């Protein structure tokens, strides 16, 4: 009932979201609390050999596994003969499920604490409030998490089941929690609340502390006062005639950090961010986790002992080389979804430019830049080779780049086992959840990733995700162009004619049908389309990313509602005068759509 209400509500509000990963259904009917993954090729932990095994899961736990099991009668069976099962990933640091503060939307991170023109409120010492200064260690991430955030399903579709999430903000945004990426209501996501303190090198812009030196000075003062408070609290409870310690929300909140009971996850992507965080740690002595690191190989010695854990960023620098697209370039480069014609045009243009200006100095710069890029790709491999433990965190990564970046790291020296370790057992250890998660073992949380091929191999794709016993299925689309913004310019007019014209459609959602029309037109070989419906009143009617491949057509429709961009993803099969297919909406699932041709183009 809840689900239906939610769906209707969503349609009424036209708040619809879609993801690229094509879940068949984000919400398979759960008639039983028992799932059996039958005869899968199981890698139970990183480094373990593949074993054919059946895994039985009940009430969110792995209850049995082995080769000749009696499968419970009430189990929902997944025939997995051709499939591979791995422990699902654990994200060591991220903002999955964390809402973007609305105020942050039109503001860069270094911006002023309040609207321009408005003077920040300052005390007699000229200091802004703790909030304006970005010092909110007392804040928990919990109130800013929303189960409906698209990032939850996006990262789940990439294989993640558990994440350590932190709030957004400035120098001390607040406390992080461990969540499970499955649940219908926000509370259900939370596993361990307030387990960490999140810190970053972000000043308060025009307010104090504005720069990195202000942030460090503020850290010293806060830490010193918390240490004093801690000592005085002990005196206060043990001895008579001791005045109550002065109360300061920030000092109070940092006491667990001073005690060493709460680690500080310090976001330190670049080399200087890392050296400054390490210097601060030496200075103050808190437990620290260097997080979101992109250049940690400079500090191998500091990380070797493991006393300062390390989380590597899943974001990799992009190749912004001018030669990109040059046929002669022998370097491997991550290709963006540019159409072929564009890069041909680019390279021919470049060829002309190169004849005109040959700048040996620039070429040397280019060589060194390429070397630096390579070193960034090699970070994980180099650290792993040296036996330095690390986890991966998605904080700065994008779901769409995840597979590409992991592969890039593997191409540059990281082994698949090491990658899996950094995505499962290592973060589990870091977050103190290794007894419950990180491997496929009886008694552990039923967090399993099921893929069509061995993980990280070419064309490997996730078929199912089990997150604490909740099943999510994904369809693998073959030979289909990925999400593209340009319409295929080579499509001939005759090929497009199967689609052009006006169509009526009906989307079936439980207890209701949503109807409207779709219109496709072709101009100079380019397809465009619009959608018309009583349900859609938000202005934009344009269909995007229209890809026609024979009788299959896919397109998306997105629009803004309440400041948020939402996307509907259509996937249709055309049969002359009618079509059927489905519409995917992240977090809501996939729905049948049928339609009839109303008219051909004039």
């Amino acid at each position, binding site marked *: 009932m809840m689900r239906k209400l939610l769906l209707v509500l969503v349609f009424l509000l036209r708040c619809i979201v879609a993801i690229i990963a094509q879940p068949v259904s984000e919400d398979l009917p759960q008639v039983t609390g028992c799932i059996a993954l039958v005869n899968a090729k199981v890698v139970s932990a990183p480094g373990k050999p593949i074993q054919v095994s059946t895994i039985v899961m009940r009430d969110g736990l792995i209850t049995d596994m082995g080769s000749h099991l009696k499968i419970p009668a009430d189990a929902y069976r997944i025939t997995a003969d051709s499939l591979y099962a791995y422990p699902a990933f654990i994200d060591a640091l991220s903002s999955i499920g964390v809402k973007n503060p609305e105020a942050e939307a039109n503001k860069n991170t270094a911006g002023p604490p309040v609207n321009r023109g408005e*003077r920040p409120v*300052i005390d007699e*010492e*000229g*200091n802004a409030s703790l909030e304006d200064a970005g010092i909110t260690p007392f804040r928990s991430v919990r109130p800013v998490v929303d189960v409906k955030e698209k990032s939850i399903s996006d990262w789940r579709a990439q294989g993640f089941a558990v994440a350590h999430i932190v709030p957004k903000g400035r120098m001390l945004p607040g406390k992080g929690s461990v969540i499970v990426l499955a649940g219908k209501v926000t509370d259900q996501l939370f596993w361990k609340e307030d387990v960490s303190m999140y810190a970053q090198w972000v000043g*308060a812009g*025009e307010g*104090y*502390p*504005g*720069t*990195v*030196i*202000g942030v*460090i*000075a*503020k850290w*010293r*003062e806060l*830490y*010193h*006062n918390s*240490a*004093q408070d*801690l*000592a*005085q609290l*002990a*005196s206060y409870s*043990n*001895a008579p*005639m*001791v*005045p109550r*310690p*002065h109360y300061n929300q920030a000092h109070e909140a940092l006491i667990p950090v*001073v*005690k060493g009971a709460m680690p500080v996850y310090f976001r330190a992507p670049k*080399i*200087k961010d890392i*050296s*400054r965080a390490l210097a601060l740690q*030496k*200075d103050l*002595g808190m437990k620290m986790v260097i997080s979101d690191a992109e250049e940690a190989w*400079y500090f191998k010695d500091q990380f070797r002992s493991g006393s300062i854990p390390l989380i590597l960023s899943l974001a990799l*620098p*992009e190749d*912004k*080389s001018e030669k990109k697209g040059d046929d002669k370039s022998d370097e491997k480069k991550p290709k963006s979804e540019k159409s072929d014609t564009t890069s041909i045009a680019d390279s021919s243009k470049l060829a002309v430019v190169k004849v005109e200006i040959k700048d040996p100095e*620039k070429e*040397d*710069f*280019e060589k*060194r*830049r390429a*070397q*630096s*890029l390579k070193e*960034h790709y090699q970070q994980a491999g180099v650290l792993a080779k040296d036996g330095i433990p690390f986890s991966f965190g998605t904080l700065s990564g994008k779901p769409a780049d995840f597979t590409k970046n992991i592969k890039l790291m593997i191409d540059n020296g990281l082994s698949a086992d090491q990658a899996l370790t950094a995505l499962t057992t290592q973060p589990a250890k870091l977050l103190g959840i290794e007894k419950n998660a990180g491997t496929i073992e009886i008694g552990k949380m039923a967090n399993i990733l099921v893929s069509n091929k061995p993980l990280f191999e070419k064309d490997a794709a996730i078929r199912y995700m089990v997150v604490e016993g909740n099943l999510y299925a994904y369809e693998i689309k073959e030979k289909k162009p990925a999400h593209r913004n340009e319409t295929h310019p080579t499509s001939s007019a005759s090929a497009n004619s199967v689609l052009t014209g006006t169509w009526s459609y009906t989307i079936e959602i439980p207890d209701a049908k949503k109807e409207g029309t779709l219109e496709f037109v072709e101009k100079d070989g380019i397809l465009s389309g619009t959608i018309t419906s009583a349900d859609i009143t938000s202005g934009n009617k344009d269909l995007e990313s229209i890809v026609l491949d024979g009788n299959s057509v896919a397109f998306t429709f997105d629009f803004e509602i309440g400041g948020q961009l939402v996307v509907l993803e259509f996937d249709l099969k055309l049969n002359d005068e009618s079509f059927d297919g489905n519409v995917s909406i992240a977090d809501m699932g996939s729905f049948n759509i049928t339609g009839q041709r109303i008219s051909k183009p004039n």
Partner: protein
Amino acid sequence: MRKFIFLSMLFSFSHLFSQVPMGDMVIRNGTVLTMTKGTLTETDILIQKGKITAIGKTLKAPLGIKVIDATDEYIMPGIIDAHSHIGIDAVNEATNPITPEVKVGDAIDPFDLSIYRALAGGVTTSHAMHGSANAIGGQCQTIKHRYGLVDPAAFIFKDAPRTIKFALGENPIRVHGEGRGVQPRTRMGVERVIRDAFAKGQVYRDKWKAYELTKAKNPNAAPPLYNERYQTMADILDGKIIIQCHSYRADEILMLLNVLRDFGVKKITFQHANEGFKVAPELAAFGAMASVFSDWWAYKFEVYYSTAYNATILTRNGVVTSINSDSGEMIRHLYYEAAKTQRYGGLSDDEALSLITINPARQLGIDAKVGSIEIGKDADIAIFSGHPLSVYAVPQMTIVDGLVRFDKANDPNDMRIYIDPEEATPAYYGREEVDECMRGTDQMFFNHH
């Protein structure tokens, strides 16, 4: 619980030091301008573990030691710039008229190419200063130009006294009075802001002294709230920090001398001090020092009344004077800047070179270690093709701690250490860099020195 107090006391001003590489070498047969012990011709200098261990003719040196032939060349102590902003990522914490608690030493940038450029001009040590946006700016950091190392801590001049930036006149007035609508709006306001900070520092210091006394009798006594800002003011009052005050006009220089007298503060060097020549006897009587430009002025109203004889007049009045750059460009030719005092004022060779060696060392409190070529001092040395005060002289080699950090004969085109993986052409390529006082405030205000 004790251990937490102990812990919190421990961190306050300790800098954990990483191992800094030191070198051995012998420099043969050069003309050595020692600065303190005259000029020695055809002389060798032996360097072991980064220190000068012997100076003399045809010295015996350990077998296999690196030998540098300085025949027909001039050897002088590594040049010291008493006022610069190179090698740091943050210059101005311009969000409060007083920010004594911030330390630019926390934001050292080991990759700043300006450090290498400075080496190419024979400069081995510089005083990386907080900017002049605030009446009381942050603590500065004396750095050694160990370009090539990655650890920021390796650039810190070990055991150099703490220094702090003060700023008088137009800059703090513009940033805070005009820009942010808070005190100081006038020169009177600047004085008031500084006096107020010292007064609060006194109150703070007294509170803590009282607490320490009570604590001796009652271990459960409640400590006052810790305040990094006023703790730093208390440290200045206690003589633990040398003030380095950005100033131009004679009246404001005298104003600050009066303020310091009232609060019993003695250690101060006036930076820029373009009108220092007007109050040179007063500066000498106070024991204040001055670090000036050779001939740079008229870039704003308060810097119109200036003279190229400033350094000479100050020197002749007994004020310890240095010539500084306040610029990532001028730092490369401080020896020219020093030479100008011979044209304007007729200082002797040693007096002129003292302005960029032993005198700035005195002002920074590091003259026991650098600033002259003497046995036991750090092996920070610049070798020139001719006499460094000649316009024909070209720096050949710069040595820091007995290690060659610049060698004209081996000077690769691209000396960057850190390469941004997403930046094909470095940002400096064809663009000028700025390394001056008001860096970090230019989004809000005009950029001036």
